[in-house]
């Protein structure tokens, strides 16, 4: 990429850049490696060594931690996955509908609505936390998954609308026009032309929605109070609340467990995700 006249200097340059980057990388990633290692150590070894490798490998922490909070992590994880799956579907459908309208249709006050939509991206969520809570309270939705899911059926995440609008704008208009000439209405154009072409944006939305929902905490903390409705982050948090010191091993093991879905999704999709983030951030 850089045009350098002297090849020898260039090699040295890279060597230094690599050294700097590797040092930063090791410092950053070490805690995660240590966490994973510690989760397999016997309880009495966890805090005695910086060595991430467990001597006397054991899965006792996982076995004990899985049920230590009174409800099994199976329940927490399946609650988290249920909520995340619903939110993913909701975001895909509602945000793509809104994005199609903003990017392709010409209707009254479109620019006003669009500006409002952009504005909500800057809105701190605290501004609506309390009134939303009292509305959901009146609806008798507290301690159900509904407050965590229903907003996403209504295109609540403006970020994804924006991401999709940007993507649809990049699709040549000739394609929808050709379909329209063949007699396709807006629904047909949307379903058979736009949606298939915006697959990359839909995948980015799926990945980010899943990760963000799975790791969300404050909303779940506020809305879910019954232990059997708890999500994985809430289940993990009850380790922290519970007299600390009781089971560090179990807590660390369950931390690893709740990180696994995010890391797995990341590993499968990292290339697309990284590129998606880089380009949406720019616009």
């Amino acid at each position, binding site marked *: *990429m*850089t045009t350098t006249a002297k090849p020898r200097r260039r090699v040295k340059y*890279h060597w230094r*850049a*690599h050294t700097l*980057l590797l040092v930063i990388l090791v410092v950053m990633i070490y805690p*995660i490696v*240590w966490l994973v290692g510690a989760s397999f150590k016997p309880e009495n070894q966890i*805090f005695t060594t*910086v060595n991430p490798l467990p001597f006397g490998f054991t899965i006792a922490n996982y076995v004990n931690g899985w049920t230590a909070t009174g409800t099994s992590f199976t329940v927490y994880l399946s609650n988290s996955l249920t909520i995340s799956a619903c939110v993913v579907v909701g975001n895909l459908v*509602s945000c793509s509908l*809104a994005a*199609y*309208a903003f990017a392709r*249709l*010409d*209707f*009254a006050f479109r*620019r006003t*609505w669009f500006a409002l939509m952009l504005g909500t991206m*800057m809105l*701190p969520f*605290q*501004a*609506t936390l*309390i*009134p*939303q809570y*009292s509305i959901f309270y009146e609806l008798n939705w507290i301690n159900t998954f509904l407050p965590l899911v229903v*907003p996403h059926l*209504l295109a609540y995440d403006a970020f994804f609308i924006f991401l999709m609008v940007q993507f649809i*704008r990049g699709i040549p*208009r000739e394609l929808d*026009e050709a379909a329209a000439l063949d007699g396709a209405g*807006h629904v047909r154009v*949307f379903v058979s032309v736009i949606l298939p072409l915006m697959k990359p944006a839909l995948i980015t939305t799926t990945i980010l929605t899943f*990760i963000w929902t799975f*790791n*969300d*905490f*404050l909303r779940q903390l506020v809305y879910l109070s019954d232990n059997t409705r708890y999500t994985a*982050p*809430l289940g*993990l948090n009850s380790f*922290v609340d519970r007299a*600390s010191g009781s089971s560090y091993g179990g*807590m*660390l093991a369950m*931390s690893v467990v*709740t*990180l696994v879905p*995010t*890391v797995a999704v*990341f590993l499968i999709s*990292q*290339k697309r*995700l*990284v590129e998606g*983030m*880089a380009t949406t951030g720019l616009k």
Partner: protein
Amino acid sequence: MSENAGVAVLEPPATAPGAPAPARKRKRHKHNRAGYAFLAPWLIGIFGLTLIPMLYSLYLSLTKFNLLTDPQWTGLDNYARLLSDERYLQSIKVTLLYVVTSVPLKLAAALLVAVALNRGLKALGFYRATFYLPSLLGASVAVSVMWRQIFSRDGLLNDFLALFGIRGADWIGDPRYALWTLVLLSAWQFGTPMLIFLAGLKQLPQDLYEAAELDGAGRFRVFFSITLPLLSPMVFFNLVLETINAFQTFTPAYVVSGGLGGPIDSTLLYTLYLYFRGFGSMQMGYASAMAWVLFAVIGAFTALYFWSARRWVNYTD
């Protein structure tokens, strides 16, 4: 659909200069029905989940409200009480300190790594993905739990320091240091701004760099005279975004401090205190007033950034 083909959403509709006004008006919106049909879910959401709740919250902020009984009008009482609430003032102090330290630190780390990465390195994809990973994990309870174990009295950091014979402090138990562990946790998640910087760096015109090299400019000179000014729109974008995010931080403060904001309120971030008031002691009117003040503060910061942008953000295109 055919005639408006070239009209992008943010641009005004292109109209022929000589076209008669009434005819234009009639033709202007061709898809009113379809447009509002597609937009319907979002419209319900924007009113039901954002606009009406915000007005309701403004009303609640002028009342005493505990969810179980009807709100009682108290006028500006909540706002007046904020001014004499010691814990509230402490939370403002903590939050401002957190924002003005964590945001620059995070952006500096992002910029440093992005510049180091932008050399056409072979392992770019690997580095980029690995540096980005903490941004994805960062907001989770699990990472906050991990952070708590690293910085506790007998945690990983102190074990490491002990190798050199240094006795580390009780980082999260000592009010002098506790907030800084959160600042570090925020800086650890520099991946997202790094990706944005990296994308920006790729678009910089190479001829400027060649000219600078011919003139014999050193690397620092090149960075401060060419790279940074050209990158200023991205710095601005990241600054706005990360500031807004930093003001809303909740999870790390809650988990690292064991759900208390301690020791002695040294990590009592704004949102944490809002949560205590609104959902701990059910003072929802008071918490609504807090939310509106936060909204105003974030608005003021954003306005300040946009106002100052004229002086330092370089818009070439």
